[in-house]
């Protein structure tokens, strides 16, 4: 039996009067890559962002149900949001490096979370190596991060996330703004990172989902339609909707 890292139970999420997620329950296994697929507007990103509580900032968002990491209730008032976000990292669709140097992009959050000063350069080197970026930037850590290429920026954003040693990494279409070669590098990176992290990734690219996922969840109009191993979803889907979507009939 695989170990469950993140879970949602009877999750309902509303923006104002509009219900985005409908009674959704799902379990994400530890140290595996789970892909969320489905047509635009089906609630994949919304689901992803509810785990690290990014909806806290939208005043009209309302959440019902239970979200848990291990046994911790993510929406319990006693748990600090910053601690949760440190343990559940996130990589966004468009690379969003801070307007600081490459080094500072990684050191900033380490300072905020009071990592010992002496350890910081080592942690940063490790994170950059882990993100396949070290060889490309080791000579120019003081360079502004925005000068990097799009693919490098995205790997920097991943490095910025892993440097905090999170337990889960949420990825919201991390390759959609990148060229095929950069996409390839990020995919290799994801496959390597799953040894240490539980990864949930939203993607519109079916080939990508097939290449990197252990499990795939298909969502449609705010509901979880089918959730199974990658092979089963792509070669033997049980639901008619799933079959049509991955066959490219809609979406």
């Amino acid at each position, binding site marked *: 039996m695989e170990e469950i890292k993140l879970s949602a139970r009877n999750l309902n999420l509303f923006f104002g009067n509009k219900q985005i997620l409908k009674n959704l329950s799902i379990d994400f296994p530890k140290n595996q890559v789970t892909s969320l697929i489905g047509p635009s507007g089906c609630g994949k990103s919304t689901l992803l962002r509810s785990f690290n509580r990014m909806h806290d*900032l939208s005043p009209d968002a309302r959440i019902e149900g239970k979200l848990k990491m291990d046994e911790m209730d993510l929406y319990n008032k006693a748990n600090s949001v*910053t601690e949760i976000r440190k343990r559940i990292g996130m990589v966004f669709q468009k690379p*969003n490096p801070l307007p600081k140097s490459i080094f500072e992009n990684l050191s900033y959050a380490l300072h905020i979370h009071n990592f010992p000063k002496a350890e910081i350069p080592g942690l940063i080197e490790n994170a950059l190596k882990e993100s396949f970026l070290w060889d490309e930037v080791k000579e120019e850590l003081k360079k502004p991060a925005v000068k990097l290429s799009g693919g490098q920026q995205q790997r920097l954003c991943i490095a910025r996330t892993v440097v905090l040693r999170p337990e889960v990494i949420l990825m919201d279409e991390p390759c959609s703004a990148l060229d095929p070669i950069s996409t390839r590098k990020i995919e290799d990176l994801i496959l390597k990172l799953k040894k240490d992290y539980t990864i949930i990734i939203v993607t519109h690219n079916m080939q990508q989902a097939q290449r990197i996922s252990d499990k795939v969840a298909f969502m449609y109009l705010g509901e979880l339609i089918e959730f199974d191993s990658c092979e089963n979803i792509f070669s033997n889907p049980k639901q008619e909707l799933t079959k049509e979507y991955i066959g490219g009939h809609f979406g």
Partner: protein
Amino acid sequence: MKKKLLHAFDWLLLLGSTLLVCTFLGIILWDIFSKGLPAISWDFLLQYPTDGMTQGGILPAVVGTVLLTFITTLFAVPFGVACAVYLNEYAKHSLFTNIIRASIRNLAGVPSIIYGLFGLALFVQAMKLGTSVLSAGLTLGLLSLPYIIITTEEALKRIPNSMREATLALGVTQFETIKDVILPKALPGILTGVILTLSRAAGETAPILFTGVAFYINGVSTSINQEFMALPYHLYMLSTQHYAIEQVRPLAYGTAVVLITLVFLLNIVAFIIRSKYRTQD
């Protein structure tokens, strides 16, 4: 062919309007500088007025205006920026905050003489600060606040949300995000707005009229509870209130040149900051 002609006509009309505006600006500048520049000298800038202000320089007025602008800055910038941060980063869009926003926009349109009277009532009388450079600076600060709030809010709005999400997702608090990422990134835009506002405030006469500006003081204002001389008021006084208006006309033009140059310099600084900011994006 006919269509082409019509386009040419439209174009001429627009060009003509632009040229007309520039012409007026040119005439004003030419008039002031041609008549004022001969009066400018180090003595004019560095000496006290003498002989019933028919001779000598404008040092106290220059110092007074600089000191006044300094006090305005100290008061208006921290409050203005804090208010804009609250409105843009923290406040929810409710009826209440919309009323606050509308009020701030309306305050920006209040005539400056009203601020003068308000400053007289509040700072000079109620708070017993007397007619002083402090009262006048605070009054000008009030006048500047709405502009600083509006321009700062615009600068903050231009920062994409992805920048805020970047650090929030790393477990950084909202306050730290604003302090370390959002404000530094918005700084050029904020500075531009602040400088333009201050250059406007430095040239105001009405708000300081009742709150502390003096016709003449024999010495440079060194303390913030003294009355002071200021360039715009000095100019006003030389051109309308003086007993020998014709005789002091060159001095009045000289004062105008100094005031305009001061404001221009501030505007150029704002322009440089803005163009640097643009090439960064």
